[in-house]
Structures are given as structure tokens and as C-alpha cells.
């Protein structure tokens, strides 16, 4: 059996650890069972994988650990339906299948020397986490780094174990926000686009990376425009429904582009070139 020849065959992998991030998001840390395959595994921040829960099927998730930390591959899974519910039932020691890496990646090379502002909403924090940690691991390559992360309520914030560190780092400006007041919440309250306006990051020599539900993206784009960000200074990832992940099944196209191979990462300038079907 050769995994590199058959694009549909997953690598067998073992769950090392799980973390219940929020009531409906669970993180899985996995390693490929074949040590050579694991040692040779290379990916770029932003790339995704298909995760199998055997018997339930496959779904697409971003690899949200950075390539600078290869002890394991991390996937954070929001419960949405059949496969994600089945994955939520798995525990350390259980087997999953991994088909990865798939898709394109964040333009981290061309962002060197620039300021970066990350704007994540809900599970949309997952792809941002990859790039954020990658940049923190290569801190000197980048200018100021800000993170605006919003969730509906404190309970809906993922990566809570990491938030204190992100908040305390001097080389990272972290702002957390929730939609409505909640007891014990010490951070911002308000919708992401509004908080972003208050933060008012300088557009000059800056790239904004945003990911979240479609409605958040829509209003975040408006706010970024007001702040003077040009279309090619805004990077986002698209969530199309996917299946094959390799440009064949025909599910994820926007005109002649396939989000699974040409994406999921696009600049806003690139999106504008596509037929209007987001």
C-alpha cells in the first residue's frame, strides 16, 4: 500500500491527546503511525487535512499546529454533523485516518518585515493559530503582531489554555471580545468589526488575516476598508464544502477555481477576481 500514489488513502494515525476546548469544539493531537511518514511530513501554515473517523467518514480541518512544532499534528473540530460528532467520541489511543497536507497556504514569506493583525471569530481561530504560532516561532521576521479573537461567550473561546500566555506576551497585542456581557469577563465586549475599529491597526505596511463565519467576514472587511486596508492587504480562508480535497469531486469550485487546491487561502484582491459565488 502506497499512500503517496493513491490520493484517497489516508495515513493511519493515533490520537495522543484530546482537549475539550468549548462545549462543541474538541482538539485532537495526532501522530502518523508510520514513523518514516511522520518524520517526512511537511506542511505550510494554512494547509488542511482530511480526518477520518473510520465508519463515519472524512471531513476537512485545518492543521492548526504550526510546522515549527512537529511533535504532533493538531486539529480542532467543531461538532457540526455526522463525521464531526463521531470524531468527538474518540479518545487518546484511538485511530484516525489523515490525508494531508492539502490546499495552498498563507503567504508568510511575502509578509516578512510587515506588521500583522489577526482577526478570528469562533472556530475561525483555528487556521489563524497555525500562522500565529509560526510567526511567534520566527518572531524576528515580522513587525508588530496583533490578535483580535472573538467568540459568542467566554465558554465559546477555544485554545483557552493558551490565552493567558498570548495575553501576557510583550511581543503580541492580544484583544479578546465576546458578543454580550458575561459575569467574570475582564476583556472587551462587542462585535469583532466594532472592536477592530476601536483597535484601529495602522494599514501601512500591514497585512490583516481574518477567518470566521461569513457574516463576520463581511463586516470585518468593511471595517478593514474604513481603516485603509487595500484588497491585497487582506487575507482570508474560504470554507467551501469539500470532499476529495484534490480537485476532482467538483464540489468546491468557484468558476474555474477549486478551493481545495487553489485555496483555502485567498487575498481579498483574488476573491474579487472570482465569479461572485462565495
Amino acid at each position, binding site marked *: 500500500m502506497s499512500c503517496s500514489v493513491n*490520493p484517497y488513502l489516508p495515513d*493511519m494515525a493515533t490520537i495522543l491527546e484530546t482537549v475539550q476546548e468549548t462545549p462543541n469544539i474538541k482538539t485532537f493531537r495526532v501522530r502518523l503511525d508510520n514513523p518514516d511518514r511522520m518524520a517526512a511530513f511537511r506542511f505550510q501554515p494554512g494547509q488542511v487535512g482530511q480526518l477520518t473517523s473510520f465508519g463515519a*467518514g472524512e471531513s476537512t480541518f485545518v492543521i492548526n499546529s504550526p510546522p515549527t512544532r512537529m511533535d504532533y499534528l493538531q486539529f480542532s473540530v467543531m461538532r457540526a454533523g455526522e463525521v464531526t460528532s463521531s470524531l468527538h467520541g474518540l479518545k487518546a489511543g*484511538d485511530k484516525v485516518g489523515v490525508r494531508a497536507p492539502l490546499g495552498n497556504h498563507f503567504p508568510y514569506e511575502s509578509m516578512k518585515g510587515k506588521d500583522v493583525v489577526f482577526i478570528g471569530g469562533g472556530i475561525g481561530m483555528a487556521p489563524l493559530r497555525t500562522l500565529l504560532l509560526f510567526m511567534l516561532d520566527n518572531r524576528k521576521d515580522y513587525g508588530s503582531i496583533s490578535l483580535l479573537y472573538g467568540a459568542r461567550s467566554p465558554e465559546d473561546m477555544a485554545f483557552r489554555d493558551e490565552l493567558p500566555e498570548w495575553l501576557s506576551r510583550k511581543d503580541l497585542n492580544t484583544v479578546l471580545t465576546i458578543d454580550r456581557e458575561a459575569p467574570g469577563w475582564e476583556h472587551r465586549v462587542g462585535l469583532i468589526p466594532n472592536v477592530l475599529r476601536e483597535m484601529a491597526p495602522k494599514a501601512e505596511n500591514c497585512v490583516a488575516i481574518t477567518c470566521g463565519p*461569513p457574516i463576520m467576514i463581511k463586516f470585518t472587511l468593511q471595517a478593514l476598508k474604513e481603516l485603509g486596508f487595500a484588497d491585497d492587504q487582506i487575507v482570508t480562508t474560504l470554507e467551501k464544502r469539500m470532499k476529495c480535497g*484534490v480537485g*476532482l*469531486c*467538483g464540489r468546491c469550485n468557484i468558476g474555474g477555481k477549486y478551493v481545495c487546491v487553489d485555496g483555502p487561502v485567498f487575498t481579498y484582491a483574488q476573491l474579487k477576481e472570482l465569479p461572485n*459565488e462565495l
Partner: protein
Amino acid sequence: MESSRYLPEASLDAWLGELASSHELIVPRREGDAIVFGPYDPAVSPDISRDATAPPKSTVFPACEELMRYSSVKDADDPSRTLVRMEEVMPSGSRVVFGARPCGTRGFTVYDRVFDAPAMHDPYYVARRQNTLFVTLACSEAGSACFCHWVGSGPADASGSDVLLVPVKGGWLAEGVSDKGRELLDSPLLAPGDKYAGEAKAAKAKAMESLESAADLKPAPESLLAVFDDMEFWNRMSAKCISCGACTYLCPTCYCFNITDENKGMEGSRLRTWDNCMSFQFTLEASGHNPRPTKAHRLKNRVGHKFSYYPGLHGGAIACCGCGRCIKSCPAGVDIRQIVLAAMDRAKATSQGNTTGERA
């Protein structure tokens, strides 16, 4: 080995029997009102009176196929743990498909550019394609919904085939198209074909003449993009559609698929099945957002893919073989030809500043 041989009609059954002795033989068979491809049965003559209702696509790209099997086993050292075994399932065996029409086999050339490309080899598709030979039957005359000549094909198009049978007096002139096809003609049941060459050529020309003049589809890729946001147009084009999907399942060039797991106790299979872009579910996302929420959006994508996006990615090749199945089988009378023509008219009219003047 000669590349053209004569197959007398009287020898057809014997030749099929001979092919069936060395290959799995698939032929068009009557089933009620439909003609569908299925295993050859010496007791039942194939029905080649007209083009099959369902194209031969399932012989290379089955409606449902196994990609792999997996089974769960208890870890002997730690019974609380379950291990999983995976096993690749590859198609094997060589087959001959007899009696498809040129449009049906040309359909595979649309697949080849996608599934057997430098960037991507689909091992299941490639294995079946390499091991399946097509003995195709050239058409004597065009059917009412045929428009193969619009898309660069024709009633005697041999693209995608291994042997082309051209009707001549008392039988067929069997033209070898590929090396493997020529090997199939190496049978004592076939006679030298030279003296039928002229007649075959005339038959091909006559069939071509039976088609009305072709529309010029060169502007189609641009035009479909130009009317992309014109939802009034697409609503009108899709008004009759009931989203049944017949047009995609019967299309020799539609290849969208799904991948799912099916369990049988502690074992199961990963399956690939045909999917259908005319269905609401096809692009529905977990957030509830659907980029193609109405049948107008979905029809736009179906037509756009065939006549604009695919040609854009594959050197101008149109992802439609003009077989007319979607037209004949649509319960609502949606006609893809009219949609493409109307889009070209609409785009032209709009660019000239008036919005009327469509053909459809």
C-alpha cells in the same frame, strides 16, 4: 495487422462470443423502455437500434465503487483499545464495451483530462480506463436532440474509442483506433476491409449531413461569465427545473462524486458514489450558508462548468459531448443548447447596450 476489417452482420454474435471468451463483455440491452449497458448474455441480442438511454460511463466510472476497506480489531495487548486495518481495493480484469455511440465514448476524454492529468492520477479511474476497450458504433443519422457537431465531435467521432464500427452493406467496417483495438480485430470472423473504405467514408459524410448546421460556441466561455450575476436571466432559464438530477446522472461528461463510509459490523468500506450538483445539499456548508441556494445558481454552475470553466482549464475543450441525453431525459424540458445560445445572445446584447434579443 490491417487497421480496417469487415464484420458481416451474420458474424456479429459469433464475434461477440469470441470477445466474451477473453474479456468481460458489456453490451447495450433493452430493459423496459430503456437501453442500458450490462453484461453480455449469449441468449439475448444486444440492442443497438438507437443510442442507449444511459451512457457507458459507469463501465469506467461506476455509480458506486469501493476505494478501500477497513476493519476494527481489538488490540491483543490492551483489549480496551481498538486498532484499525486498512486495505486498498483496486479494480482488476479487462473488459470490452460494445455498442456505445461516439458521444458516449468521447465523454471519457472529458474525464481523462481531469482524472489522468500530470497533476493528479486517480488510480481507480486510470486502472479501469486502461483495462476497458470500446468498440463504438458510428451513427447513421442524427437524433432530434443531438448536437455533437457543436462541440467539435460528430456521428463518426472515434475519440475515446478503440474500434469504430461504421455501417456498410451487410455489416460494418471495423476501424482500429488504438493498438489494443486493432488487436481485437485479429479474428478469423472478420474479413479484409479495403473494399468497404469508400462506402464507409460516404456513410460518415451522410450522417454528418443529417445534422443541422452547428452553432458557433466560441463566445460561450466569455458569455457565461458575462451573465454570471444576471440572476433574472438564470431564474428564467431554470424556472421549469425541478432539481431531479436526471441531467447529471445520465450525462456522459458529469463526474462529480461523493465519498462516504459504509459499515458492516466491525468492518466497512469507503465508497465513491456519483453526486449531483443540481442538489441543494451539494454545497451546503456547516454554518448553514449555501453558496448555491437556488436552482438558478445550481443550473448556472452546471452549464458554466461545461461550457466555460472546464474549457478555461483544459485548452478550450468543452465538457459536453452533445449527446442530448439531458435534453431528452429532463422531465421539465430544460434544454442546455437553448441556455448556452441565450447566454451568448444576452451577453452580446448587454455589451451592445440593449437587454433584449435572446433566442430562447
